[in-house]
Structures are given as structure tokens and as C-alpha cells.
């Protein structure tokens, strides 16, 4: 059986990559990809940690929830991005300045 620690290392690396993308990239699509990576990191952690939780399988259940959440958020986000591209002409966070910043 693969030890839990290895799952957690993979999860931590994915989380770090995802957070970096969210904070550094300015394109909305890339930011969304970063968020998806963080969600996947959480899924991997949950699946790995539910090794010790045979009967209740809460980890698996949480993973299914995360997949559902990621799907819903992607659907809504992509729809908004399409509207935004039509109306504002850009999906770059630096160019979205119609609403005052402070």
C-alpha cells in the first residue's frame, strides 16, 4: 500500500503550483486552471487519507463533492468569460478596470 505521506507530498506540490498560477497569471482562464489544480490537490489528499477510514469512506465522498464543485464552477465561469469577452473585449484581469479599484 502506498503510504499516505506520498499522497500528501503530491498534493502539496499541486497546491503550490496552483496558488502560484492564481497569484501570478493575469489571464482569467489561467487563474481558473490554477484553482482547478488546488481542487485536484485537495481530491488527492482526500483519497489518500481515506485509506484509514474504510467504513465511512468520507474521503471518497468529499472527492466526489470536489469534482461536482469544480464542474459547476467551470461551467459558470466559462459562460461568464464568454459574455465578458463579447462585451468588454478582453479576459485579462489587468484590463478589467471599468469598476473602480479601491
Amino acid at each position, binding site marked *: 500500500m502506498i503510504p*499516505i505521506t506520498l499522497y*500528501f507530498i503530491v*498534493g502539496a506540490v499541486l*497546491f503550490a503550483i*496552483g496558488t502560484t498560477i*492564481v497569484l501570478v497569471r493575469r489571464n*482569467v482562464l489561467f*487563474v*481558473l486552471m490554477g*484553482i482547478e489544480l*488546488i*481542487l485536484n*490537490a*485537495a*481530491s488527492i*489528499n*482526500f483519497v489518500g*487519507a*481515506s485509506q*484509514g477510514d474504510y467504513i465511512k469512506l*468520507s*474521503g471518497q*465522498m*468529499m472527492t466526489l*463533492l*470536489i469534482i461536482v*464543485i469544480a464542474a*459547476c*464552477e467551470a461551467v*459558470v*465561469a466559462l*459562460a*461568464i*468569460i464568454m*459574455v*465578458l469577452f463579447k*462585451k*468588454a473585449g478582453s479576459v485579462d*484581469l489587468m484590463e*478589467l478596470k*471599468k*469598476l*473602480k479599484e*479601491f
Partner: protein
Amino acid sequence: MIYDVIQHIIQSFPYAVTEIALVIAFLVLMLIDMIQLKDKALWSVVLTVAVAFYGAGEELQQLFDRTSFQEVVYFQHLFHRTPFTLFVRVLILLLGALSAVYLYLSPMGVYWKNRGETYLLLLAIIAGGLISISSYHAMPLLLGIELMSIASYILVAARITAASGEAAIKYLLYGAFTTAITLFALSLLYPTAGIHIFHPDWATQFLESSFPFKWLVLTLFFSGLLFKISLFPFHPWTPDVYQGSDWSIIQIIALLPKMAVFPILLQWAALFGAIDVFVGGLSLLVLATIIVGNTAALHQSNVKRWVAWSGVAQTGFMACTLVMTGDQAQLSLLFYLIVYLFSLPAALMILDYFESKYQAKEVDNFNGLGKKEPIGSVIFVLSMANLIGLPPTAGFYSKVYIMTTLWSSYLEQDEILYLILLLTAVAATLVSLYYYLKIPYALFFKASEKKTILTSISGSTVLFVILISILPLGIFFQPEWLSNWLRVIVAFI
């Protein structure tokens, strides 16, 4: 074995009757939306209000039943029911009904009230609030919060303009990022403390675990909830989202999530209350929220941004109570929540009315309107007095309760932190005098600008919502009436 499980699930259904009613109403509303009806908006709003009142009645019946004093855990340890959760569910449903009435009568909301999906999404937000407040396990909590969040993103975006799209994408990116962080932190807490996060054992297991960064991880875990109530590091979406949406949407996203999330945080504060690290970290966030909210609200000229920043400042005030323990703190939070959330629609409705009639989007546009609209202006002054906490309104008592609780906590525990919080709260109240009275000053003391009136909307329907919503201010004359009730409720947290 399986027979027992099925039996248990069947026995659990009576506790979830409100959620089932909401789902049925959702399906019926979808049907209504598909059929060509003459008064579609009226039918939709009547159905929404009816189902909310039906649910509130059911919950109240369970609350008054003596068996409800015992905690019931149902649906395989996913949900629990205490008198406290029942009480909050009633409040969420009543607030949902108020929101539906507001949607129907809002002068600027003609676009929204004729679209069926507005009511569908409102029902989804109410259901999300109910699911998250009853949750016992992390799964329904996050499910409920996401139900609220995703429905709000769609509501903000549904106007299909450049401004609403920008507001919605900012809202969504903040929300999705904080949810992702919450889930990741939960996945780290899961092997150490388990996943029944409202179980009393969860806190003890968490404290006993030798996990090195556990307090950092717990802070990250709270980010999703703090985002919903716009507490300090997760507040920057608030002004942009408010500015990009109409008043009918602002009142939904400003009121319902707060009503659901503050009681959840209250339950946690009761579990973690006595621990220094928790209190210290949270009070830093609260201090920062009060300072940032008040200073930013000072120099706003756009009305919607001003509402947003003052909302952040009010959130900081309410979150003061989460730092303390004891029944008095919990009572003052519930008192503040009820008075604030049920009376805010009056102020928003008047701003809505002024925007529709005089195109008043900036503070300067309100100059001299007090003589043209005397009734609306006087009520507006009253609701501003409520938000500041001036005497003839119930807001006075909500501020008094919080400040006296802070003072007595300071005397009891001799913790300098409470004194700092109290002084900040007093200073913030003084500062808030300035920005809350900016529009009343413009209404009555500045010379009127020459302006053409664009539309003529009858004020009588608007007055209806204002009157419903101004009623809570009357609690000023009989505050014990509400606080005695709340004292009974908070004993069950």
C-alpha cells in the same frame, strides 16, 4: 444492516421537509417559467413567499415542540438539528421571503422580476443557507456554501453587460479560490481530526493532534466562510460586485449569506472559544476589518461602493462577538444580525427608488432631494440612524449589547485585547457618523440641482417594503422582548 440504514434514512425525511418543499417549488417555478402566463412574475413571487412561509411554519412547529430540545443527528451523521439551527432556519426563510417581495417591488428591478431564473436562484440560495446551517459533516457545509455562491455568481452575471460580467468574474475568482483553499485545508485536517466538524470531539481531537501547522491550516479552512461574510483578507470583492449589480441583487447577496454563515461561525466559536490562539488570530482579523471598512467608506462617492464598504465595517462589528465566549456574546450577535439584516432592505429600497427616479448614483446627486421626497428621506434618515446606532432605533441596543459585552469580558479576563477591540469599536462608531450622515446631509442641507425627472414611479408599492423592513427598528422600545427569546435560543448552541 442495509435494512437499518434505509430505515434510518426514511426516518430522517421529516427533518428535511423544508428542503423538500423548496425543491418542489423549484420544479414548479421552472414549469411556470416555461408557460406563457400573463402575470408570471406575480405567480413566481407568490409561490416563493408561500414556500418560504410554509417552511418557516414547519420549523417553528418543530421549535415549539418539546422534543426539539434534544439534539437530533439525521441522514447518517450528515445533518443535525438543535433549537439554535431551527431558529436560524426560520430567520433564513423569512429573510428569503423579504428578498422575494423586494425583487417584485424594486423600481430598478423590472429586468429581474420578469425573469423566472431570478426566483429559481433565490430559492437555491435559501436552500444553500438551510443546508449549511444544519450540517454536521463538512460535506453538506461546503455543498450549501457552494450552492449559495454559485447561484450568486449567476445572479450577478445575468444582466449581461460589461460591468456585470466584470463584477461576476471577480466574485467568482475570489469565491472559487477561497473555496479551493478551504477544501485543501480540510483535506489536511481530515486525517488528524476527522470530518464531523460540528461534533464536540472534533475540537478536542484537533487540539490534541501533533500536526505542526494546525493553526495555519485552520485559518485557511475558514477562508471560504470569511469570504461569504467579507471579513478582512477576503473582502476586496465586495465593492466591485456591488457596483456592478442592481439593488435587487445587492440585497440578496448582502443579506442571505450573512444570515447563514455567522451562526455557523458562532457554533465554532463556541467550540474553540477558550483558546488563546483562536481568539488572538480572529481578533486581529476583526480589528483589520473594522479599520479597513470604516476608512474606505469615508471617501466613497459612488453610492453602491459606499454601501459595500459600510457593509464590511458592519461585518467587523458583528464579528467582534465571535472573539468572546459566553451566552451574552452569542445573544448580542444574534440581536445585531436580526436588527441589521431585517432593517437594511428599507435603506436599500430608498436608494433604489432614488436611483430609478433621479438617476442618483453618486452622493452629489442627492442634493436637495429631501424637499421633493419628504417621506422617503425621513425614513432614510431613520435607517441611517439605525446603522450608526443612534437612540430612537433598535440599532442603538445592538451596539450597546456588543460594547457592554466587550467591556465585561475585559473586566472578567483582564485581556488587553478586548479593551483594544472596544476602543476601536467606539472610534469606528464615531467615524461612521460622518459617512452615514453624508447622504442625509445632501438630502436636506444642500441646494437642489436642476434635474429632469425621467420616469414617474408610484412610491406606494415601494413604501410597502420599507414599512415591513422599518418595523424591526421598533425593538428599541422593547429590547427585552427579543433578547429574552434569544437568551433561550443561545443556551442550546
